[in-house]
């Protein structure tokens, strides 16, 4: 009978199916695949995991599509409207259309760092080859990077979500993911505390050549010093604007109370870096202040470099900043505002110096650019300047006039609308035409900044009793810059008489010294001057075909400011998912 046949057959099939051999048929997980557990048993794989953690330290060479911190300020005009800096400048951004958003990306780095810290212990290969000390060092490095990521978020988005030492399980119920923002001060305390703890473990300097670029004790202390300076600044210390900026449970996120001791702490933290005696201001062997100033960023791993990123986009920065004749894209336009900010060679601002003139020419150079301080010549290219670099093999004059070799030109968008180009940190050894790329570390923290941090904090804490110390460090910066100092040395300038005068001098010094190094965006916010600064920027008239038409101050591109811009908004995606999150004010 057919029925019986079927049932017999069925029984046979079931037997086959249930036999172990058959079950294995579907068990074909490849044996040679690297599992995450195996990653942490091997040295190379673990170091690669750590490299992935490090990769979340953001490079700052690309200031057009990766970082807005120069192009969205009054120091730089990125000429291309297609790049997102333009969108920020015209105010075309909101929580759903958010160029330069790093919120999610930085939190991936934070999670990976935590995962590394929690899984690297007991790595047998590292233990065998290098011992426990290396594991402790790597853990401290990951913790440093995590603190760096938290700081990157804090300075851009304000109060952060702190996740602590455990990763959240990917399949946890949504309720387990709900964490409110910590207050600004709590965020600062957490990051500073983490950096203190890693500073105790990290080496003072790289053990071998191959370790350059890894986090060191100095990097941790310097990052902490910067954070404490930010936390003491007017925007976060005694700022009443954020009285209503509260978590859902009513917790205030930015305190309105002023505490002078914050400045003291910031000063001490910066002094601690100086007292390591590991770093020195870079000076070129020739003693030429222009070369000295350029070398800070171009001479790899010099003694001023505290922390840097080995791989970065700086050769792209070179190409985007170089004049057309040099083979560059001719698009990183220094603004007139920045040109005006540089001192004269007598150390005075253009508004006070008798050397400054906007009339006439000296050796074919517009007098506006004559007798300026060395840092100006190290940082800005202007019309008729003699320059050599890139594909300009023998020095020649730049021509920014309309129709000139480096000016506005029919059929191309690649020209500076300000009539200037940035020259700072642009290596003449990069040549796009011949395909030469001058790779160098992207300096993220350097001693010059620490000096300026220290002077600023001391001045705010107590000008009168710290005057000597403040002047010492400001003057060290000015000495290297090759300009007269306050109260000492040749052609000494008078010592600023009041705290307020000193503040202006320090801020001006910082604006110049740290120009195009991703500081201005944050400085103008923490000083609460952004409303005044973020006005349309100017340049020379790039449409001018001759001197009389060209050398006219001309408005170039807008700079929008709304109070909401103090912080980046949290992405809308995040607000929709983090149910305890509050959006930043005004967004």
């Amino acid at each position, binding site marked *: 009978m057919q029925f019986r046949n079927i049932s017999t057959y*069925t029984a046979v099939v079931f037997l086959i199916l249930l036999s172990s051999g058959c079950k294995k048929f579907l068990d074909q997980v490849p044996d040679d695949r690297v599992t995450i557990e195996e990653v942490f048993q091997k040295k190379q794989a673990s170091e690669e995991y750590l490299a992935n953690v490090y990769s979340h330290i953001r490079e700052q060479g690309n200031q057009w599509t990766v970082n807005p911190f120069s192009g969205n300020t009054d120091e730089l005009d990125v000429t291309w409207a297609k790049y997102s800096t333009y969108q920020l400048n*015209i105010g075309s951004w909101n929580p759903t259309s958010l160029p330069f958003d790093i919120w999610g990306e930085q939190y991936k780095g934070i999670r990976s760092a935590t995962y590394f810290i929690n899984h690297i212990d007991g790595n047998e290969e590292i233990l065998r080859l290098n011992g426990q000390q290396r594991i402790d060092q790597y853990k401290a490095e990951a913790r440093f990077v995590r603190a760096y990521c938290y700081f990157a978020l804090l300075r851009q988005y304000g109060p952060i979500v702190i996740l602590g030492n455990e990763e959240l399980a990917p399949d946890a119920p949504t309720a387990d993911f709900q964490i409110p923002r910590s207050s600004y001060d709590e965020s600062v305390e957490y990051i500073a505390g983490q950096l203190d703890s890693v500073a105790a473990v990290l080496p003072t300097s790289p053990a071998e050549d191959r370790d350059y670029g890894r986090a060191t004790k100095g990097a941790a202390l310097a990052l902490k010093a910067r954070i404490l300076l930010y936390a003491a600044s007017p925007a976060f210390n005694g700022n009443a604007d954020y009285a209503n900026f509260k978590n859902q449970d009513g917790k205030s996120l930015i305190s309105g109370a002023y505490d002078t001791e914050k400045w003291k702490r910031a000063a001490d933290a910066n002094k601690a870096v100086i007292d390591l005696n590991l770093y020195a201001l870079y000076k070129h062997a020739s003693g030429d202040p222009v070369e000295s100033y350029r070398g800070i960023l171009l001479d790899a791993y010099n003694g001023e470099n505290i922390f840097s990123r080995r791989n970065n986009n700086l050769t792209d920065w070179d190409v985007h900043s170089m004049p057309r004749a040099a083979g560059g894209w001719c698009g990183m336009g220094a603004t007139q505002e920045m040109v005006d900010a540089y001192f004269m060679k007598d150390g005075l601002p253009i508004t006070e110096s008798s050397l400054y003139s906007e009339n006439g020419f000296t050796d074919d150079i517009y007098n506006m650019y004559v007798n300026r301080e060395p840092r100006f010549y190290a940082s800005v290219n202007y019309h008729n300047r003699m320059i050599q670099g890139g594909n300009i093999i023998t020095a020649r004059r730049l021509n920014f006039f309309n129709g000139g070799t480096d000016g506005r030109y029919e059929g191309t968008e690649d020209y500076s609308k300000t009539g200037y180009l940035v020259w700072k940190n642009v290596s003449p050894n990069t040549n796009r035409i011949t395909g030469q790329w001058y790779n160098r570390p992207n300096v993220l923290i350097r001693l010059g900044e620490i000096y300026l941090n220290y002077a600023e904090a001391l001045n705010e804490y107590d000008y009168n009793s710290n005057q000597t110390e403040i002047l010492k460090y400001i003057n060290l910066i000015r000495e290297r810059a090759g300009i007269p100092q306050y109260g000492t040395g040749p052609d000494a300038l008078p010592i600023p008489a009041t705290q307020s005068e000193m503040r202006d001098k320090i801020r001006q010094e910082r604006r110049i010294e740290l120009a195009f190094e991703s500081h201005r965006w944050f400085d103008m916010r923490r000083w609460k001057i952004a409303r005044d600064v973020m006005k349309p920027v100017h340049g020379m008239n790039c449409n001018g075909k001759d001197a009389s038409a060209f050398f006219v101050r001309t408005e170039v591109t807008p700079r929008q400011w709304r109070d909401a811009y103090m912080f980046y908004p949290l992405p809308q995606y995040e607000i929709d*998912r983090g*149910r305890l999150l509050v959006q930043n004010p005004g967004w």
Partner: protein
Amino acid sequence: MNSFGKHDISGMILYNQTDFVDARAGDFISSIPFRNQGIAGRVTYGFDTRYLLEANFGFNGAENFAPDKRYGFFPSFGLGWVVSNEKFFADISKVITFLKVRGSYGKVGNNKISDSYRFGYIAQVGGGNNGYAFGRNNEVWYNGRDISEYAVDVSWEEAAKTNIGLELKTLNNDLSIVVDYFQEDRTGIFLRRSNVPLYVGLRSNPYGNLGVIHNRGVDGTVEYSTSLGKNWVISARTNFTWNRAVIIDDANAAWPYPWQQRIGRKLNQRFGLIALGLFEDEKDIENSPYQTGIVKPGDIKFKDLNGDGKIDSYDEAPIGYGAVPELVYGAGFNISWKGFAFGAFFKGVGNVDVRLNGEGFQPFQLAGDRGNLLQEVTNRWTPDNPSQNVIYPRLTYPSNENMNYNNSSWWIKNGSFIRLQTLEASYSLPKAKWFDKGGLSGLRIYFIGYNVATFSKFKMWDVELGDGKGAQYPLLKSFNLGVELRFK
């Protein structure tokens, strides 16, 4: 098939196992053999050609899941009742020659999580964010490494399908009608969970059996065919389908405002801002909610749904239908008289729209590096032509300097159309003696046109190309004129 008396029975059982090796696998994971195994069975039973019953089952195992989640059981049943074969129907069967009612219910499974993610229960390790370099003189480069996909405890995705149908023939079998109602309830759809905040720091959102979608539809066909006298044959047919899939669960975060809600709405429902028209003057802008960017008269003015004084994603609501038509219908006829034949078939779709967007659509995108100027760009708002009834708002350079090109109802156009899909005419020569000389048995001259005409309100490109910028290869119009010779 065994038949005894009025009973018809058949049965079958199958063991199947597949082992497929992709010889052209481009990566390691896809070079692992693709394997499935399972048993399937079927029983059918019929009684007196009046009652029909069918039962199927599948017990399937898939490689993609953890051992205890590997097997899925997928039964299905069908019932049919041929009413016209009942005794009580005898009187009516002269009018209604055939009537059958049928219904079925069954489950099917899907084990394919995604093209790139085969083994859901194992975490995958990938390159992480990026590598990093150290080193003073020589660069010491490390590749990155991190979890790329998290292990998840997933199993079969299931769809329960129900179908109820009616078949009817009448007018001496000249007219036949088939109507079906169908319903498909998909559960455990593979989806990445989308309710995890970014600060959790996951490299990718994990998959889960998370989605639930209910699909309902009606499908019908009516055919009529008859001869009039000796020479006329007339036939006509029409069909239509309507269906709507609704999201029941999508593993997404809860939306703060009801108009943003996806659950309970159509699958692929479009969302966007609601355009109120174009700004008339500066005063109009001042008195309206804040929109980002450089906003001037002639820019699109949006509706502030939550009333917070600014236009943002909280103001996005359902707009239009979607890119897939809910309603598809067709109708056609053939008439022949002696050797002449003439026929046409029309196809139509409804409840569909076209969204204009993309690089080829926006003028001056990326500040002139990209973008395109369509001829419709002349139909735009200008200070001299401040019309609201235009295709483009004020043009800007670059195009993204304000919210004009945000997803909004402004860019949604009605996508319904009726198309004369085929048009056919032919003449067959009557048999003539000269056929034999050439060895011919028949000779026909014909004309067929495909895609002859389209009737739609949408004129910018072939409406069936749908969303975007009309840059796909369009449907061709073709006209064929032919002679058909048939030889003995």
